Protein backbone atom coordinates (compact mmCIF):
# COMPACT_ATOMS: atom_id res chain seq x y z
CA UNK A 1 0.00 0.00 0.00
CA UNK A 2 2.81 2.40 0.82
CA UNK A 3 4.63 1.87 -2.46
CA UNK A 4 1.92 3.57 -4.50
CA UNK A 5 1.60 7.32 -4.22
CA UNK A 6 -1.76 8.88 -3.71
CA UNK A 7 -3.43 10.15 -6.88
CA UNK A 8 -2.81 13.68 -8.04
CA UNK A 9 -5.67 15.91 -7.10
CA UNK A 10 -7.85 16.79 -10.07
CA UNK A 11 -9.07 20.33 -10.65
CA UNK A 12 -12.80 20.91 -10.26
CA UNK A 13 -14.62 22.16 -13.35
CA UNK A 14 -15.52 25.85 -13.06
CA UNK A 15 -19.29 26.07 -13.12
CA UNK A 16 -21.89 28.63 -12.17
CA UNK A 17 -23.87 28.03 -8.99
CA UNK A 18 -26.87 26.82 -10.98
CA UNK A 19 -24.75 24.49 -13.12
CA UNK A 20 -23.19 23.06 -9.96
CA UNK A 21 -26.63 22.42 -8.45
CA UNK A 22 -27.80 20.72 -11.66
CA UNK A 23 -24.64 18.58 -11.73
CA UNK A 24 -25.16 17.52 -8.10
CA UNK A 25 -28.78 16.72 -8.75
CA UNK A 26 -27.92 14.55 -11.78
CA UNK A 27 -25.25 12.68 -9.83
CA UNK A 28 -27.63 11.88 -6.97
CA UNK A 29 -30.45 10.93 -9.34
CA UNK A 30 -28.13 8.56 -11.16
CA UNK A 31 -27.07 7.02 -7.85
CA UNK A 32 -30.71 6.37 -6.86
CA UNK A 33 -31.58 4.87 -10.25
CA UNK A 34 -28.61 2.50 -10.02
CA UNK A 35 -30.06 1.25 -6.73
CA UNK A 36 -33.44 0.62 -8.40
CA UNK A 37 -31.80 -1.40 -11.13
CA UNK A 38 -29.55 -3.24 -8.70
CA UNK A 39 -32.33 -4.27 -6.33
CA UNK A 40 -34.89 -5.51 -8.86
CA UNK A 41 -37.01 -7.21 -6.19
CA UNK A 42 -37.83 -3.76 -4.79
CA UNK A 43 -39.03 -2.66 -8.21
CA UNK A 44 -40.85 -5.97 -8.68
CA UNK A 45 -42.81 -5.76 -5.45
CA UNK A 46 -43.64 -2.10 -5.92
CA UNK A 47 -45.20 -3.17 -9.26
CA UNK A 48 -47.11 -6.12 -7.83
CA UNK A 49 -49.24 -3.96 -5.55
CA UNK A 50 -50.82 -1.79 -8.29
CA UNK A 51 -51.45 -4.90 -10.41
CA UNK A 52 -53.26 -6.50 -7.48
CA UNK A 53 -55.41 -3.38 -7.08
CA UNK A 54 -56.31 -3.53 -10.78
CA UNK A 55 -57.39 -7.18 -10.46
CA UNK A 56 -59.14 -6.62 -7.12
CA UNK A 57 -61.31 -3.74 -8.31
CA UNK A 58 -61.81 -5.07 -11.82
CA UNK A 59 -62.94 -8.54 -10.81
CA UNK A 60 -63.85 -8.54 -7.07
CA UNK A 61 -65.48 -5.16 -6.31
CA UNK A 62 -66.14 -3.93 -9.83
CA UNK A 63 -69.34 -5.89 -10.38
CA UNK A 64 -70.97 -4.18 -7.42
CA UNK A 65 -70.03 -0.62 -8.39
CA UNK A 66 -72.26 1.26 -10.79
CA UNK A 67 -70.59 3.94 -12.92
CA UNK A 68 -72.58 6.33 -15.08
CA UNK A 69 -71.69 6.64 -18.74
CA UNK A 70 -68.79 4.20 -18.97
CA UNK A 71 -67.78 0.65 -18.17
CA UNK A 72 -66.25 0.13 -14.73
CA UNK A 73 -62.82 -0.81 -16.07
CA UNK A 74 -62.63 2.46 -18.00
CA UNK A 75 -63.77 4.32 -14.89
CA UNK A 76 -61.34 2.42 -12.68
CA UNK A 77 -58.06 2.70 -14.58
CA UNK A 78 -57.56 6.51 -14.20
CA UNK A 79 -58.07 5.99 -10.47
CA UNK A 80 -55.54 3.15 -10.44
CA UNK A 81 -52.98 5.29 -12.28
CA UNK A 82 -53.23 8.05 -9.70
CA UNK A 83 -53.27 5.65 -6.75
CA UNK A 84 -50.25 3.68 -7.98
CA UNK A 85 -48.14 6.78 -8.51
CA UNK A 86 -49.08 8.25 -5.13
CA UNK A 87 -48.42 4.98 -3.29
CA UNK A 88 -45.04 5.01 -5.04
CA UNK A 89 -44.26 8.24 -3.17
CA UNK A 90 -43.74 6.11 -0.06
CA UNK A 91 -40.37 5.16 -1.53
CA UNK A 92 -39.41 8.86 -1.48
CA UNK A 93 -39.79 9.03 2.28
CA UNK A 94 -38.38 5.57 2.94
CA UNK A 95 -35.39 6.23 0.65
CA UNK A 96 -34.50 9.48 2.37
CA UNK A 97 -35.02 8.03 5.84
CA UNK A 98 -32.70 5.16 4.91
CA UNK A 99 -30.01 7.50 3.60
CA UNK A 100 -30.30 9.39 6.84
CA UNK A 101 -30.13 6.26 8.96
CA UNK A 102 -27.15 4.82 7.11
CA UNK A 103 -25.12 8.01 7.35
CA UNK A 104 -25.16 8.81 3.63
CA UNK A 105 -26.83 12.15 4.22
CA UNK A 106 -24.11 12.92 6.75
CA UNK A 107 -21.50 12.37 4.03
CA UNK A 108 -23.50 14.44 1.52
CA UNK A 109 -23.85 17.24 4.03
CA UNK A 110 -20.08 17.35 4.53
CA UNK A 111 -19.53 17.77 0.77
CA UNK A 112 -19.56 21.15 -0.98
CA UNK A 113 -22.73 20.26 -2.85
CA UNK A 114 -26.10 21.94 -3.30
CA UNK A 115 -28.30 21.50 -0.21
CA UNK A 116 -31.31 20.68 -2.39
CA UNK A 117 -29.55 18.12 -4.61
CA UNK A 118 -30.14 15.10 -2.37
CA UNK A 119 -33.87 15.89 -2.25
CA UNK A 120 -34.28 16.69 -5.94
CA UNK A 121 -32.19 13.64 -6.82
CA UNK A 122 -34.58 11.50 -4.81
CA UNK A 123 -37.83 12.99 -6.12
CA UNK A 124 -36.61 12.99 -9.72
CA UNK A 125 -35.45 9.37 -9.62
CA UNK A 126 -38.82 8.44 -8.12
CA UNK A 127 -40.51 10.26 -10.99
CA UNK A 128 -38.42 8.24 -13.46
CA UNK A 129 -39.51 5.06 -11.70
CA UNK A 130 -43.12 6.27 -11.93
CA UNK A 131 -42.80 6.41 -15.73
CA UNK A 132 -42.05 2.70 -15.60
CA UNK A 133 -45.01 2.06 -13.27
CA UNK A 134 -47.36 4.05 -15.56
CA UNK A 135 -46.34 1.97 -18.59
CA UNK A 136 -46.72 -1.26 -16.65
CA UNK A 137 -50.20 -0.37 -15.35
CA UNK A 138 -51.29 0.69 -18.83
CA UNK A 139 -50.30 -2.71 -20.21
CA UNK A 140 -52.09 -4.51 -17.37
CA UNK A 141 -55.13 -2.25 -17.89
CA UNK A 142 -55.30 -3.15 -21.57
CA UNK A 143 -55.07 -6.83 -20.67
CA UNK A 144 -58.18 -6.57 -18.44
CA UNK A 145 -60.26 -4.65 -21.00
CA UNK A 146 -59.36 -0.98 -20.50
CA UNK A 147 -59.58 1.14 -23.66
CA UNK A 148 -58.69 4.79 -24.24
CA UNK A 149 -61.94 6.61 -25.18
CA UNK A 150 -60.28 9.74 -26.51
CA UNK A 151 -56.92 9.63 -28.29
CA UNK A 152 -53.33 8.54 -27.76
CA UNK A 153 -52.37 12.21 -27.65
CA UNK A 154 -54.69 12.93 -24.72
CA UNK A 155 -53.58 9.72 -22.97
CA UNK A 156 -49.99 11.01 -23.19
CA UNK A 157 -51.07 14.39 -21.80
CA UNK A 158 -52.66 12.55 -18.86
CA UNK A 159 -49.48 10.48 -18.50
CA UNK A 160 -47.31 13.60 -18.27
CA UNK A 161 -49.77 15.38 -15.97
CA UNK A 162 -49.75 12.48 -13.50
CA UNK A 163 -45.97 12.18 -13.48
CA UNK A 164 -45.80 15.89 -12.67
CA UNK A 165 -48.56 15.65 -10.03
CA UNK A 166 -46.84 12.68 -8.34
CA UNK A 167 -43.48 14.46 -8.47
CA UNK A 168 -44.94 17.47 -6.67
CA UNK A 169 -46.81 15.26 -4.20
CA UNK A 170 -43.60 13.31 -3.44
CA UNK A 171 -42.20 16.44 -1.77
CA UNK A 172 -44.73 15.91 1.00
CA UNK A 173 -43.08 12.55 1.47
CA UNK A 174 -39.57 13.98 1.28
CA UNK A 175 -40.51 16.12 4.26
CA UNK A 176 -41.98 13.10 6.06
CA UNK A 177 -38.91 10.97 5.34
CA UNK A 178 -36.59 13.57 6.88
CA UNK A 179 -38.87 13.95 9.91
CA UNK A 180 -39.24 10.23 10.67
CA UNK A 181 -37.06 8.61 13.30
CA UNK A 182 -36.23 5.65 11.03
CA UNK A 183 -37.13 4.16 7.65
CA UNK A 184 -39.77 1.79 9.04
CA UNK A 185 -41.61 4.68 10.66
CA UNK A 186 -41.23 6.69 7.46
CA UNK A 187 -43.04 3.91 5.60
CA UNK A 188 -45.79 3.61 8.19
CA UNK A 189 -46.33 7.38 8.43
CA UNK A 190 -47.34 7.42 4.77
CA UNK A 191 -50.50 5.39 5.10
CA UNK A 192 -52.64 7.66 7.30
CA UNK A 193 -52.10 10.24 4.56
CA UNK A 194 -52.44 8.01 1.51
CA UNK A 195 -55.48 5.94 2.51
CA UNK A 196 -58.00 8.74 3.06
CA UNK A 197 -56.73 10.63 0.05
CA UNK A 198 -56.88 7.71 -2.38
CA UNK A 199 -59.92 5.83 -1.08
CA UNK A 200 -62.14 8.73 0.01
CA UNK A 201 -61.90 9.99 -3.53
CA UNK A 202 -63.45 9.52 -6.94
CA UNK A 203 -60.70 7.03 -7.82
CA UNK A 204 -62.72 3.83 -7.36
CA UNK A 205 -66.34 4.82 -6.78
CA UNK A 206 -68.45 7.85 -7.76
CA UNK A 207 -68.67 10.36 -4.88
CA UNK A 208 -72.49 10.34 -5.19
CA UNK A 209 -72.59 7.04 -3.28
CA UNK A 210 -70.95 8.57 -0.17
CA UNK A 211 -72.60 10.30 2.83
CA UNK A 212 -72.84 14.09 2.38
CA UNK A 213 -69.89 15.10 4.60
CA UNK A 214 -67.58 12.57 3.02
CA UNK A 215 -68.84 13.40 -0.42
CA UNK A 216 -67.83 17.04 0.04
CA UNK A 217 -64.29 15.96 0.98
CA UNK A 218 -64.12 13.41 -1.82
CA UNK A 219 -65.16 15.93 -4.43
CA UNK A 220 -62.75 18.67 -3.41
CA UNK A 221 -59.54 16.98 -2.38
CA UNK A 222 -56.52 16.95 -4.72
CA UNK A 223 -56.44 13.23 -5.47
CA UNK A 224 -60.03 13.31 -6.79
CA UNK A 225 -59.14 16.36 -8.85
CA UNK A 226 -56.18 14.55 -10.43
CA UNK A 227 -58.38 11.48 -11.01
CA UNK A 228 -61.09 13.58 -12.64
CA UNK A 229 -58.52 15.26 -14.88
CA UNK A 230 -57.10 11.88 -15.91
CA UNK A 231 -60.55 10.42 -16.49
CA UNK A 232 -61.50 13.45 -18.55
CA UNK A 233 -58.36 13.19 -20.68
CA UNK A 234 -58.67 9.43 -21.20
CA UNK A 235 -62.45 9.00 -21.49
CA UNK A 236 -63.86 12.42 -22.29
CA UNK A 237 -65.91 12.66 -19.10
CA UNK A 238 -67.36 13.19 -16.55
CA UNK A 239 -68.96 16.25 -18.03
CA UNK A 240 -66.91 18.09 -20.57
CA UNK A 241 -64.97 20.35 -18.21
CA UNK A 242 -61.74 18.40 -18.48
CA UNK A 243 -59.76 21.63 -18.83
CA UNK A 244 -61.03 22.76 -15.43
CA UNK A 245 -59.78 19.59 -13.74
CA UNK A 246 -56.42 19.76 -15.54
CA UNK A 247 -55.91 23.37 -14.43
CA UNK A 248 -56.95 22.48 -10.88
CA UNK A 249 -54.47 19.59 -10.88
CA UNK A 250 -51.70 21.94 -11.97
CA UNK A 251 -52.66 24.40 -9.24
CA UNK A 252 -52.53 21.66 -6.59
CA UNK A 253 -49.16 20.52 -7.96
CA UNK A 254 -47.85 24.05 -7.59
CA UNK A 255 -49.19 24.25 -4.03
CA UNK A 256 -47.37 21.04 -3.06
CA UNK A 257 -44.14 22.39 -4.51
CA UNK A 258 -44.38 25.85 -3.01
CA UNK A 259 -45.18 24.55 0.48
CA UNK A 260 -43.15 21.36 0.72
CA UNK A 261 -39.91 22.09 -1.19
CA UNK A 262 -38.92 24.81 1.30
CA UNK A 263 -40.12 22.69 4.22
CA UNK A 264 -38.11 19.66 3.07
CA UNK A 265 -34.96 21.70 2.39
CA UNK A 266 -35.33 23.36 5.80
CA UNK A 267 -35.65 19.94 7.39
CA UNK A 268 -32.61 18.65 5.45
CA UNK A 269 -30.47 21.53 6.69
CA UNK A 270 -31.17 20.89 10.34
CA UNK A 271 -31.76 17.17 10.41
CA UNK A 272 -29.62 15.02 12.77
Amino acid at each position, binding site marked *: *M*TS*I*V*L*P*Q*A*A*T*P*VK*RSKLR*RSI*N*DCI*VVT*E*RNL*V*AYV*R*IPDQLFFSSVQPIMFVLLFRYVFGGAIATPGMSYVDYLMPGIFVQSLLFGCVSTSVGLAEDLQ*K*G*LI*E*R*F*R*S*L*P*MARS*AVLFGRTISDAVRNVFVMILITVVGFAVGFRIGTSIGLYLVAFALLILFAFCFSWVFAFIGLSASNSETAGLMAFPILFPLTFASTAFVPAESMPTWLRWFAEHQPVSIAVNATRGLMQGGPGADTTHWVVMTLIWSAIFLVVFVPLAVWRYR*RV*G
Partner: protein
Amino acid sequence: MTAAIEAEGLTKTFGGELLALNGVGFTVEEGTVLGLLGPNGAGKTTTVRVLTTTLVPDSGWARVNGLDVVKDANKVRSSIGLAGQYAAVDANLTGRENLRMVGQLFQLSRKDASRVADELLEHFNLTEAANRPSKTYSGGMRRRLDIAAALVVRPPVLFLDEPTTGLDPNSRTAVWQVVEDLVANGTTVLLTTQYLEEADRLADNIVVVDRGAVIAEGTPATLKATLGETVLDLGFSDVVAASAASKLFVSSWPAPPVLDGSTLELPIDAGPSQVMMALRKLDEAGMAPTSMTLREPSLDDVFLSLTGRRAELGEDN
Protein backbone atom coordinates in the same frame (compact mmCIF):
# COMPACT_ATOMS: atom_id res chain seq x y z
CA MET B 1 3.29 27.02 12.54
CA THR B 2 -0.26 27.86 11.66
CA ALA B 3 -3.38 26.24 13.01
CA ALA B 4 -5.37 24.02 10.64
CA ILE B 5 -8.20 23.52 13.13
CA GLU B 6 -9.16 25.85 15.97
CA ALA B 7 -12.13 25.40 18.26
CA GLU B 8 -13.13 27.53 21.20
CA GLY B 9 -15.92 27.13 23.75
CA LEU B 10 -18.13 24.90 21.60
CA THR B 11 -21.45 23.97 23.18
CA LYS B 12 -24.32 21.97 21.79
CA THR B 13 -27.49 20.79 23.46
CA PHE B 14 -29.75 18.17 21.92
CA GLY B 15 -33.45 18.29 22.59
CA GLY B 16 -33.03 20.99 25.23
CA GLU B 17 -31.73 18.47 27.72
CA LEU B 18 -28.66 16.51 26.76
CA LEU B 19 -25.54 18.63 26.87
CA ALA B 20 -23.45 17.02 24.12
CA LEU B 21 -20.74 19.67 24.08
CA ASN B 22 -19.89 21.77 27.09
CA GLY B 23 -17.18 24.18 26.04
CA VAL B 24 -14.87 22.04 23.92
CA GLY B 25 -11.84 23.87 22.61
CA PHE B 26 -8.46 22.94 21.13
CA THR B 27 -6.01 23.75 18.35
CA VAL B 28 -4.48 21.45 15.75
CA GLU B 29 -1.30 22.66 14.04
CA GLU B 30 -0.96 22.16 10.32
CA GLY B 31 0.48 18.79 9.34
CA THR B 32 -0.06 17.18 12.74
CA VAL B 33 -2.43 14.53 14.05
CA LEU B 34 -4.79 15.22 16.90
CA GLY B 35 -6.31 12.26 18.68
CA LEU B 36 -9.66 13.06 20.24
CA LEU B 37 -9.92 10.41 22.90
CA GLY B 38 -12.96 9.56 24.96
CA PRO B 39 -15.63 7.00 25.77
CA ASN B 40 -19.06 6.75 24.18
CA GLY B 41 -21.16 9.84 24.48
CA ALA B 42 -18.17 11.98 25.41
CA GLY B 43 -18.87 14.37 22.53
CA LYS B 44 -16.26 13.17 20.03
CA THR B 45 -18.65 12.69 17.12
CA THR B 46 -20.56 15.87 17.94
CA THR B 47 -17.26 17.78 17.86
CA VAL B 48 -16.40 16.27 14.47
CA ARG B 49 -19.87 17.12 13.17
CA VAL B 50 -19.46 20.76 14.18
CA LEU B 51 -15.99 20.95 12.59
CA THR B 52 -17.22 19.32 9.37
CA THR B 53 -20.16 21.78 9.19
CA THR B 54 -22.94 19.21 9.49
CA LEU B 55 -24.00 20.53 12.89
CA VAL B 56 -24.24 24.17 13.99
CA PRO B 57 -23.01 24.74 17.57
CA ASP B 58 -25.19 26.61 20.09
CA SER B 59 -22.26 28.78 21.07
CA GLY B 60 -18.50 29.02 20.62
CA TRP B 61 -16.70 29.10 17.31
CA ALA B 62 -14.46 26.93 15.17
CA ARG B 63 -12.24 27.54 12.17
CA VAL B 64 -10.86 25.01 9.71
CA ASN B 65 -8.10 26.27 7.42
CA GLY B 66 -8.85 29.71 8.79
CA LEU B 67 -12.50 29.53 7.64
CA ASP B 68 -15.42 29.78 10.04
CA VAL B 69 -17.36 26.51 10.07
CA VAL B 70 -20.71 28.30 10.29
CA LYS B 71 -20.25 31.44 8.16
CA ASP B 72 -18.01 29.89 5.49
CA ALA B 73 -19.45 26.36 5.72
CA ASN B 74 -19.37 25.67 1.99
CA LYS B 75 -15.74 26.77 1.63
CA VAL B 76 -14.82 24.58 4.59
CA ARG B 77 -16.52 21.61 2.90
CA SER B 78 -14.30 22.05 -0.17
CA SER B 79 -11.13 21.60 1.86
CA ILE B 80 -11.96 18.74 4.20
CA GLY B 81 -12.47 15.01 4.02
CA LEU B 82 -14.69 13.09 6.42
CA ALA B 83 -14.70 9.37 7.04
CA GLY B 84 -15.90 7.25 9.88
CA GLN B 85 -18.76 5.60 11.59
CA TYR B 86 -21.36 8.21 10.66
CA ALA B 87 -20.32 9.10 7.12
CA ALA B 88 -21.11 6.05 5.10
CA VAL B 89 -20.56 4.71 1.62
CA ASP B 90 -23.54 3.67 -0.50
CA ALA B 91 -24.06 -0.07 -0.07
CA ASN B 92 -25.74 -0.48 -3.46
CA LEU B 93 -23.02 1.25 -5.46
CA THR B 94 -19.74 -0.44 -6.32
CA GLY B 95 -16.51 0.85 -4.85
CA ARG B 96 -15.70 2.62 -8.10
CA GLU B 97 -19.16 4.19 -8.37
CA ASN B 98 -18.98 5.43 -4.79
CA LEU B 99 -15.68 7.20 -5.36
CA ARG B 100 -16.73 8.56 -8.74
CA MET B 101 -19.92 9.94 -7.22
CA VAL B 102 -18.00 11.80 -4.53
CA GLY B 103 -15.59 13.15 -7.16
CA GLN B 104 -18.45 14.41 -9.29
CA LEU B 105 -20.02 16.07 -6.27
CA PHE B 106 -16.72 17.94 -5.86
CA GLN B 107 -17.39 19.18 -9.42
CA LEU B 108 -14.71 17.01 -11.02
CA SER B 109 -15.44 16.11 -14.61
CA ARG B 110 -16.70 12.56 -15.14
CA LYS B 111 -13.35 11.64 -16.66
CA ASP B 112 -11.29 13.07 -13.80
CA ALA B 113 -13.62 11.55 -11.23
CA SER B 114 -13.18 8.12 -12.84
CA ARG B 115 -9.38 8.47 -12.98
CA VAL B 116 -9.14 9.56 -9.34
CA ALA B 117 -11.50 6.72 -8.36
CA ASP B 118 -9.32 4.12 -10.10
CA GLU B 119 -6.13 5.48 -8.57
CA LEU B 120 -7.63 5.52 -5.09
CA LEU B 121 -8.94 1.97 -5.51
CA GLU B 122 -5.46 0.85 -6.44
CA HIS B 123 -3.88 2.73 -3.57
CA PHE B 124 -6.26 1.12 -1.10
CA ASN B 125 -5.94 -2.41 -2.52
CA LEU B 126 -9.54 -2.42 -3.69
CA THR B 127 -9.03 -2.76 -7.45
CA GLU B 128 -10.21 -6.35 -7.51
CA ALA B 129 -13.40 -5.46 -5.67
CA ALA B 130 -13.89 -2.23 -7.59
CA ASN B 131 -16.93 -3.42 -9.53
CA ARG B 132 -18.70 -5.16 -6.68
CA PRO B 133 -21.45 -3.42 -4.68
CA SER B 134 -19.85 -2.21 -1.48
CA LYS B 135 -22.35 -4.16 0.62
CA THR B 136 -20.35 -7.27 -0.30
CA TYR B 137 -17.19 -5.77 1.21
CA SER B 138 -15.68 -6.87 4.52
CA GLY B 139 -15.61 -4.36 7.37
CA GLY B 140 -11.99 -3.48 6.68
CA MET B 141 -12.58 -3.01 2.95
CA ARG B 142 -15.59 -0.79 3.58
CA ARG B 143 -13.57 1.33 5.98
CA ARG B 144 -10.78 1.70 3.42
CA LEU B 145 -13.33 2.70 0.78
CA ASP B 146 -14.79 5.17 3.23
CA ILE B 147 -11.39 6.75 3.82
CA ALA B 148 -10.70 6.74 0.08
CA ALA B 149 -13.96 8.64 -0.43
CA ALA B 150 -12.70 11.27 2.00
CA LEU B 151 -9.49 11.67 -0.03
CA VAL B 152 -10.96 12.24 -3.47
CA VAL B 153 -9.82 15.86 -3.64
CA ARG B 154 -6.71 15.40 -1.47
CA PRO B 155 -8.11 17.61 1.29
CA PRO B 156 -5.53 19.38 3.47
CA VAL B 157 -7.58 18.46 6.56
CA LEU B 158 -8.98 15.01 7.18
CA PHE B 159 -11.47 14.00 9.86
CA LEU B 160 -11.61 10.32 10.84
CA ASP B 161 -14.39 9.44 13.24
CA GLU B 162 -13.45 6.20 15.01
CA PRO B 163 -11.73 4.85 11.89
CA THR B 164 -10.88 1.47 13.38
CA THR B 165 -13.80 0.71 15.70
CA GLY B 166 -14.97 -2.82 15.02
CA LEU B 167 -12.04 -3.73 12.76
CA ASP B 168 -9.86 -6.82 13.09
CA PRO B 169 -6.19 -6.22 14.00
CA ASN B 170 -4.94 -6.56 10.40
CA SER B 171 -7.42 -4.07 9.02
CA ARG B 172 -6.65 -1.76 11.90
CA THR B 173 -2.96 -1.81 11.10
CA ALA B 174 -3.78 -1.12 7.44
CA VAL B 175 -5.83 1.93 8.37
CA TRP B 176 -3.03 3.18 10.62
CA GLN B 177 -0.59 2.81 7.75
CA VAL B 178 -2.87 4.90 5.54
CA VAL B 179 -3.04 7.66 8.14
CA GLU B 180 0.73 7.64 8.59
CA ASP B 181 1.20 7.94 4.80
CA LEU B 182 -1.16 10.88 4.63
CA VAL B 183 0.53 12.69 7.47
CA ALA B 184 3.90 12.10 5.85
CA ASN B 185 2.44 13.88 2.81
CA GLY B 186 1.45 16.90 4.90
CA THR B 187 -2.21 16.23 5.66
CA THR B 188 -3.60 17.45 8.97
CA VAL B 189 -5.64 14.74 10.65
CA LEU B 190 -8.17 14.83 13.46
CA LEU B 191 -9.13 11.36 14.54
CA THR B 192 -11.47 10.27 17.27
CA THR B 193 -10.85 7.03 19.05
CA GLN B 194 -11.69 5.01 22.12
CA TYR B 195 -8.30 3.33 22.03
CA LEU B 196 -5.37 4.88 23.83
CA GLU B 197 -3.10 2.59 21.81
CA GLU B 198 -4.37 4.09 18.56
CA ALA B 199 -3.99 7.67 19.74
CA ASP B 200 -0.54 6.79 21.07
CA ARG B 201 0.59 5.37 17.75
CA LEU B 202 -0.85 8.03 15.44
CA ALA B 203 -1.33 11.26 17.31
CA ASP B 204 1.13 14.08 17.94
CA ASN B 205 -1.27 15.45 20.51
CA ILE B 206 -4.13 13.94 22.42
CA VAL B 207 -7.20 15.69 23.75
CA VAL B 208 -9.22 13.64 26.22
CA VAL B 209 -12.91 14.54 26.29
CA ASP B 210 -15.56 13.51 28.76
CA ARG B 211 -19.18 14.71 28.99
CA GLY B 212 -18.60 17.31 26.32
CA ALA B 213 -15.56 18.93 27.86
CA VAL B 214 -11.78 18.62 27.54
CA ILE B 215 -10.40 16.97 30.66
CA ALA B 216 -6.78 16.47 29.64
CA GLU B 217 -4.47 17.49 26.82
CA GLY B 218 -0.90 16.73 25.85
CA THR B 219 1.46 14.56 23.88
CA PRO B 220 0.95 10.81 24.18
CA ALA B 221 4.14 10.55 26.22
CA THR B 222 3.13 13.18 28.77
CA LEU B 223 -0.37 11.80 29.09
CA LYS B 224 0.81 8.28 29.59
CA ALA B 225 3.46 9.36 32.05
CA THR B 226 0.93 11.22 34.14
CA LEU B 227 -2.12 9.08 33.63
CA GLY B 228 -1.29 5.50 33.01
CA GLU B 229 1.63 3.17 32.76
CA THR B 230 2.56 -0.15 31.29
CA VAL B 231 2.22 -2.95 33.79
CA LEU B 232 3.95 -6.33 33.80
CA ASP B 233 1.64 -8.93 35.34
CA LEU B 234 3.54 -11.92 36.73
CA GLY B 235 1.48 -14.92 37.81
CA PHE B 236 2.83 -17.35 40.41
CA SER B 237 1.72 -20.78 41.54
CA ASP B 238 0.39 -19.41 44.84
CA VAL B 239 0.23 -16.36 47.10
CA VAL B 240 3.34 -17.40 49.00
CA ALA B 241 5.47 -17.55 45.84
CA ALA B 242 4.07 -14.24 44.64
CA SER B 243 4.80 -12.46 47.91
CA ALA B 244 8.31 -13.91 47.97
CA ALA B 245 8.88 -12.53 44.48
CA SER B 246 7.40 -9.21 45.54
CA LYS B 247 10.13 -8.81 48.17
CA LEU B 248 12.76 -8.78 45.39
CA PHE B 249 11.26 -5.59 44.01
CA VAL B 250 9.98 -3.69 47.02
CA SER B 251 13.10 -1.60 47.57
CA SER B 252 14.85 -1.78 44.22
CA TRP B 253 12.03 -1.03 41.73
CA PRO B 254 11.41 2.57 40.57
CA ALA B 255 7.67 2.32 41.27
CA PRO B 256 6.21 0.14 44.03
CA PRO B 257 4.98 -3.31 42.91
CA VAL B 258 1.39 -4.32 43.66
CA LEU B 259 0.53 -7.72 45.01
CA ASP B 260 -2.87 -8.99 43.91
CA GLY B 261 -3.40 -12.57 45.13
CA SER B 262 -0.93 -14.78 43.31
CA THR B 263 -0.24 -12.06 40.74
CA LEU B 264 2.52 -9.52 41.04
CA GLU B 265 1.97 -6.28 39.12
CA LEU B 266 5.17 -4.43 38.20
CA PRO B 267 4.93 -0.92 36.75
CA ILE B 268 7.16 -0.56 33.67
CA ASP B 269 8.16 2.92 32.55
CA ALA B 270 11.46 2.31 30.79
CA GLY B 271 10.49 -0.11 28.04
CA PRO B 272 11.65 -3.67 27.26
CA SER B 273 15.00 -3.36 29.07
CA GLN B 274 13.12 -2.95 32.31
CA VAL B 275 11.11 -6.11 31.59
CA MET B 276 14.34 -7.99 30.99
CA MET B 277 15.71 -6.61 34.23
CA ALA B 278 12.68 -7.91 36.12
CA LEU B 279 13.04 -11.38 34.62
CA ARG B 280 16.77 -11.43 35.33
CA LYS B 281 16.10 -10.57 38.98
CA LEU B 282 13.64 -13.47 39.25
CA ASP B 283 16.05 -15.83 37.51
CA GLU B 284 18.92 -14.88 39.83
CA ALA B 285 16.68 -15.64 42.81
CA GLY B 286 15.71 -18.98 41.24
CA MET B 287 12.06 -18.02 40.82
CA ALA B 288 9.92 -18.56 37.73
CA PRO B 289 6.48 -17.08 37.10
CA THR B 290 3.76 -19.40 35.73
CA SER B 291 2.29 -16.68 33.52
CA MET B 292 3.33 -13.29 32.21
CA THR B 293 1.39 -10.46 30.57
CA LEU B 294 2.54 -7.01 29.52
CA ARG B 295 -0.42 -4.68 29.86
CA GLU B 296 -0.54 -1.31 28.06
CA PRO B 297 -2.53 1.35 29.86
CA SER B 298 -6.00 1.52 28.33
CA LEU B 299 -8.39 4.39 27.95
CA ASP B 300 -10.08 2.85 30.93
CA ASP B 301 -6.96 3.33 33.08
CA VAL B 302 -6.53 6.90 31.87
CA PHE B 303 -10.15 7.56 32.58
CA LEU B 304 -10.06 6.03 35.98
CA SER B 305 -7.17 8.24 36.98
CA LEU B 306 -8.74 11.38 35.45
CA THR B 307 -12.32 11.02 36.55
CA GLY B 308 -12.30 8.34 39.19
CA ARG B 309 -14.87 6.34 37.24
CA ARG B 310 -14.68 3.72 34.55
CA ALA B 311 -15.13 4.62 30.87
CA GLU B 312 -18.13 3.05 29.19
CA LEU B 313 -16.71 1.56 26.04
CA GLY B 314 -18.65 0.09 23.16
CA GLU B 315 -19.20 0.06 19.44
CA ASP B 316 -21.78 2.80 19.16
CA ASN B 317 -22.44 6.22 20.58
